[in-house]
């Protein structure tokens, strides 16, 4: 690949990264592009935060406070522009920033003879990895990857060199981004530490100064959110964090019989790429490849630990493996192919191979959730969703200009507490959390703020009955039929629709 070996690597990087970046931009800014439901859910939660509502008091979710702070940025900017466009623009800028920072990090070559990777190859890998997860743009794992990538590259560059040659401002920027990424969800810090363990094993040393800067940045983020409101952290540590951890050892029996999406094909791809990468790498030149292999493996472990098979939980694994694939292919094609053909063929091949399963057209056509929302509510009215896998409902509510009014953004905690109780008595914290949630949902339904209630059927209906919440629902809402939506992981999610009396 001539361009990779040119004297002006930044120019080659731009040349190579441009086609996939244009593809991403074209997809992202096309009117048909819709953010993944998880992104929409948290954007709406951020709207509630900006409107003065408090996490764990006015609404409840297992997410971390820093996550909502990040999603608040496009919501805040949406005062000046359309929310979808603002969000698209911010995600795109974050991608470009991640790409630019990474290129600048590898620009300063380490002091030893073998450079870990060239900036053109890296730029192509970043763009292709993002292209592969394009349908999951804006989800938490995708944001995490954008924020983490410069840090990982920085660490490799530093470990490969005798001393860190990267400018301190760039180190601080990468550390701050990684710290923000790790603050987005509980297991992400573990992913980063897993990668750091890899570096420790591979190089037998830790670059303490960079890690110190990272730790300081993490502490600052923590402090910032504490200063915003300490009661949020009390709620998080007392209730949300223990439940989030409990979820990792929870197996949802309701997923038996589910068929969509089937990630087996991705796992075949994953195994083959790992094998090819292992064969194509020699120790001196494959450190970055190996690091992204480890990242992909930790992403796979995280996906398995989440246990629900949702596509937005596999983004780290897809990103890592595509990154690895591109770097391995570049290494392989270096002697045989020309830059131009690689730049065209690689992204196309990656898109073809890693396309995340799309909803079958017939099932999409059979969606009736839009009709239910349109016929039974007006624009700007609130709709409460009580569902264990509610993302699709939030997506449709947002698209149809209604406002979610649920107390529990996701009913998973109720199900989790119920199922934990079946095994053994709940501890004091779990019990108080359960009582608090039930009281708040009762209050939410009794307040009749929402015009409609979408209740995932039949599992959540049964759960409401168990918790004694059916009565308050029946007292304030009347049944208005059923609707369905195509969504992971059931394929078709059924909702019973309740209209305010």
């Amino acid at each position, binding site marked *: 690949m001539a361009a990779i070996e040119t004297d002006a690597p930044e120019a080659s990087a731009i040349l190579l990264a441009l086609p996939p970046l244009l593809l991403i931009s074209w997809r992202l800014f096309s009117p048909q592009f819709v953010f993944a439901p998880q992104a929409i859910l948290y954007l709406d939660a951020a709207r509630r935060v900006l409107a003065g509502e408090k996490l764990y008091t006015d609404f409840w979710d297992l997410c971390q406070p820093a996550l909502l702070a990040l999603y608040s940025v496009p919501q805040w900017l949406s005062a000046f522009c359309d929310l979808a466009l603002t969000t698209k623009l911010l995600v795109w800028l974050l991608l470009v920033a991640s790409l630019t920072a990474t290129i600048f990090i590898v620009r300063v070559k380490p002091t030893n003879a073998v450079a870990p990777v060239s900036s053109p190859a890296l730029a192509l890998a970043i763009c292709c990895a993002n292209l592969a997860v394009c349908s999951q743009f804006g989800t938490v794992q995708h944001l995490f990857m954008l924020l983490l990538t410069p840090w990982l590259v920085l660490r490799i560059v530093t470990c490969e060199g005798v001393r860190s040659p990267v400018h301190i401002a760039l180190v601080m920027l990468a550390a701050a981004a990684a710290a923000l990424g790790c603050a987005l969800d509980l297991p992400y810090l573990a992913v980063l530490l*897993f990668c750091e*363990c*890899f570096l*420790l*094993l*591979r190089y*037998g*040393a830790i670059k303490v100064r960079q890690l110190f800067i990272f730790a300081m940045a993490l502490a600052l983020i923590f402090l910032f959110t504490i200063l915003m409101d300490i009661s949020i952290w009390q709620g998080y540590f007392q209730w949300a964090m223990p439940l989030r951890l409990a979820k990792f*050892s929870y*197996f*949802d*029996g*309701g*997923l*038996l*019989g*589910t*068929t*969509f*999406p*089937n*990630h*087996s094909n991705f*796992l*075949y791809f994953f*195994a*083959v790429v*790992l*094998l090819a990468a*292992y*064969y194509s*790498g*020699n*120790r001196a030149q*494959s450190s970055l490849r*190996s690091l992204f*292999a*480890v990242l992909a*493996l*930790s992403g*796979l*472990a995280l996906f*398995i*630990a989440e*246990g*629900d*098979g949702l596509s937005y939980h596999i983004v780290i694994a897809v990103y890592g493996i595509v990154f690895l694939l591109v770097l391995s292919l570049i290494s392989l094609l270096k002697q045989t192919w020309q830059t131009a053909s690689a730049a065209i063929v690689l992204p196309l091949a990656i898109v073809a191979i890693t396309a995340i399963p799309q909803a079958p057209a017939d099932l999409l056509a059979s969606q009736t959730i839009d009709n239910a929302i349109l016929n039974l509510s007006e624009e700007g009215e609130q709709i409460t969703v009580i569902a264990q896998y509610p993302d699709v409902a939030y997506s449709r509510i947002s698209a149809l200009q209604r406002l979610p009014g649920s107390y529990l953004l996701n009913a998973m905690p109720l199900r989790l507490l119920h199922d934990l109780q079946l095994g053994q008595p709940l501890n004091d914290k779990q019990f108080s959390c359960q009582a608090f949630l039930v009281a708040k949902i009762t209050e939410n339904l009794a307040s009749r703020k929402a015009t409609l209630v979408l209740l995932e059927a039949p599992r959540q209906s049964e759960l409401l009955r168990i918790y004694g919440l059916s009565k308050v629902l029946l007292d304030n809402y009347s049944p208005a039929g059923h609707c369905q939506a195509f969504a992971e*992981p059931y394929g078709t999610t059924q909702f019973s629709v309740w209209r305010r009396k």
Partner: protein
Amino acid sequence: MNTTKVSTKNNWPIAVGILIVLAVVFCKLPYWFAHPLAIHADQSVYLAMADLLLKGKKLYVDIFDFNPPLIIYLNTIPVVLANLINRPVIQVFNLSIYFLMLLSTTLTAAIFYANRQASDRYLFFPLLLAPVVCTQTQFYDFGQREHLFILLYFPFFVCRILRYQSGNIPTALAVTAGILAAIGVSLKPQFFLTALILEASLAWQWRSIKLFGSVENKICALLTAVYLLHFVLLGQQSLSVLFDQAWPIYSNGLSYFHIGFIEGLASLSSFSYPYYLLALAMSLAFALQGRSCWFLPATTFTLISLLSMLQAGSIWTYRGIPLQLGCLILIALSAGVGLEALFNYKARMAAPTLAALVCSAVLCFCQVWAPANTDYDFDLAQIGYSGRAPSSDLSLLVPSIIAHSQIGDRVIYIGRGVRPGYPSILQAHRHPGSRYLHGMILPMLVVCIEKDPSRFKPMLDLVIANYGQDVLTNKPKLIFIDDIFVAPLFAQRRFIEKYMTNYELIEHIDQAACTVYRSK
């Protein structure tokens, strides 16, 4: 292979290593003595098939199965031994597997001992532990074909890598490893394929095909060829059932047992275990890539085993055993690299190495330690033996079988799978009453009929008629019929009216969703 002189001051690690290996090897032996009836479905059904084979029944004609027959031949060993010493065949089977693990470990240890001067000798003790830990963590899948494969193949795997490293492989050990590997790879076609890919990987790694003709390879290839040739001796009738019925039904109908990935995650906690192990082991392999030439073949074995497990597409956890072994080999290699660093006084590696070793040792013992059940509330006299066993080891149908039949009576379970008919019938010391020891063929045929009705519908009729014929000929004392799937299928063909007029309905077993009929 590079050799260096072993320093005498370093002998204590060898003693510690031997003690650790012995502790891990023998720590679960009391468990299998204390649980004489602990067995799971597939293993028990092959023991029953082996018993039928020893009684002169014809393979595939009088004993129907989808798999190649080697596993049935192997199971005749515990059956013969159990008859000789009058102990439950299940206990003898479990101890036979234990013995096989000892044999495999001893053979591997002997190969390592012959190469004790090798520069990478620090890898040997951790490597020796890999198949042992893998064995000791098996409960449901102890003695499954995949488990036998890893035990039989592992010495060969070690032997081949050392051969490429120009190691010292005494001919007797190479021949023994070749014989064991031939048995292992002949158990299932995918095992043979795994071995073949690994051989190609070794040739690629060392850029040489000269060692294809090594003695262990020759023995392995010869015995595998002999096994393939023996099919000719099975007879026209057996081959006809095997090729015209069993394998077409298997290839077209196995999808009945396929499940989605998410469903697997949601249904069984052990489903995710190999994936966590994979993440850890492959990360170590990437971190330590290039530190030892053993990593590449071990990684190949691991990822090929992952592909093989994915290809199965079912929740059958035993399909993941080779993957588990691959991961444990990689973890063992990493521990070995750490040991080497530690004993070579590479100071900067010492702290992480020590931490990794302590973690590995704790993990190892936590994984393999299994206290025996102390509640021995089942008197083995009920099934014709002396001693006691925990009733928690008994399968669902055992109480009903014991209550309504005598030792040695014939019993049939007609359901969708092997469980709960087996291991119940074997645990109760009863004999199978039909050529179909399990009913997997029925749902598979239903799937096949959806694809090609004209070909498979007559087969379903034939199978049900065969069941009827077996009832009339063998006169089983008890017949268990699955309520959900089989009962409606048989009702359409008036099975009970045609073949079971001499039977009375005696009970429903809700937990097993089946109805029990007893001969009048």
